């Protein structure tokens, strides 16, 4: 395995990649959207600016968006590697990445209003650890911006306004409603991470995990795969468009996960990820070999 310093340096590079390089599948989806928009429309102009921005950020190794978000990090590790060590190394990496301007100092003391100045704070970064049987450490992360986080939402089914019952048709109705409620405020075109079921703790985490799936990934459950495809198509018929300017490109992807629920509860939880869908992942082998997964 790596030393503490090596872990930290690897995590700084992981954060740099997440902040400055948009994954290829996301760029491709934005390009496809751009071709569908009307020539000379505000929607097309918005997507052109976005594509130009993505190239500039990658070339200059500078943040794609100034809101570098909350690092939301999912770690899988063997029993021999300490979660406290990994957590300390990642937090140190956040501080270093902030001092190098890969991240904005993004943690504000909620009571005093003071910015901590370091990028780290209580609950920031958010980290989730799972022990697994493999000898490698795998770290997958997103940078989750605040504008899109503000339009994320959670529905309780049944929901009478939308006549949404406790079935997949009900899920479809509330997810489409979430897209309309969000308008352009989450920096459309967005990617939706949806969790059906779970509770108010687990569901938001699962919806974030869904955001880690590549856009081309097909849900192993055929019913959910069909719902993902249908929601992507219907979401793009709503006409919200890039930035909410109107147009054909409202969503880049829809990913759905399921958790079991209590008899009394049926939550549908939607995480809205902006077009700057900043995912990155790394795998660190038993012998310390580093493999970038995106």
């Amino acid at each position: 395995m790596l030393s503490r310093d090596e872990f930290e340096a690897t995590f700084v590079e992981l954060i740099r990649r997440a902040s400055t390089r948009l994954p290829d599948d996301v760029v491709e989806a934005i390009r496809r959207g751009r071709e569908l928009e009307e020539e000379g429309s505000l929607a097309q102009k918005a997507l052109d600016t976005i594509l130009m921005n993505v190239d500039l950020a990658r070339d200059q190794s500078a943040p794609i968006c100034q809101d570098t978000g909350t690092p939301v990090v999912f770690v899988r590790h063997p029993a021999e590697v300490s979660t406290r060590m990994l957590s300390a190394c990642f937090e140190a990496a956040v501080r270093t990445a902030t001092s190098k301007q890969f991240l904005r100092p993004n943690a504000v003391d909620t009571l005093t209003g003071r910015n901590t100045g370091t990028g780290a704070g209580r609950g920031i970064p958010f980290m989730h650890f799972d022990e697994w049987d493999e000898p490698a450490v795998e770290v997958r992360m997103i940078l989750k911006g605040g504008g899109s986080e503000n339009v994320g939402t959670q529905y309780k089914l049944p929901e009478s306004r939308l006549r949404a019952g406790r079935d997949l048709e009900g899920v479809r109705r509330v997810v489409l409603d979430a897209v309309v409620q969000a308008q352009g405020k989450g920096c459309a075109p967005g990617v939706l991470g949806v969790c059906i079921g779970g509770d108010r703790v687990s569901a938001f985490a699962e919806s974030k995990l869904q955001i880690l799936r590549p856009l081309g990934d097909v849900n192993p459950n055929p019913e959910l795969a069909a719902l993902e495809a249908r929601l992507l198509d219907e979401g793009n018929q709503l006409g919200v468009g890039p930035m909410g300017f109107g147009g054909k490109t409202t969503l880049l992807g829809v990913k759905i996960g399921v958790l079991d629920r209590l008899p009394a509860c049926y939550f549908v939880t939607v995480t809205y990820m902006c077009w700057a869908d900043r995912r990155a992942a790394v795998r660190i082998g038993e012998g310390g070999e580093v493999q970038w997964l995106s």
Partner: protein
Amino acid sequence: MAELKLPVGEGAIRELNVGDYVELSGRMITGRDAAHKWLIEGRREDVVPYLEGSVIYHCGPVVRHNPDDSWDFVAAGPTTSIREEPYQADVIARYGLRGVIGKGGMGPKTLDGLMKSGAVYLHAIGGAAQVLARAVKRVERVFMLEEFGVPEALWVIQVERFPVMVTMDSHGGSLHDEVEQASGRRLRELVGLEP
């Protein structure tokens, strides 16, 4: 496409309509959540010359502090504007602003304020932090850096050809209202609800 020099007079602003693409050059100031609350709690005389006839940019930038004590904008896209809805119309009227730059649009109180004061809402492309940072040529000075921190401070900047779209004008037009209504109608069609 229109080029607009800042500071700007009411006449040029009244000529702008929803859907216009505009490039801004001149001096503007950033301000977001903490700044709007602060601007409305009293009249901040030091800041008045930077607001009058200019625009306020809803932006929390990433900045670099150089060894010679100067600053550079490293990333500088817009933040969501709707959070300033309670304050915006009053800030415009009190300080003589001619416009607001942000993203996501604003509500009826601001739209009314734009009509009364002769100002516009200019939409920058959310997340386009590099394209927009390149249009920022110089950081002149900063207010409330210690108190508010980097993202929330008021940064006085010189920009060149800063690209924006007019999405709310001084005649009561709002692209955001139009899109919201049309998408709401489409939703009701898709799920079979009464219009």
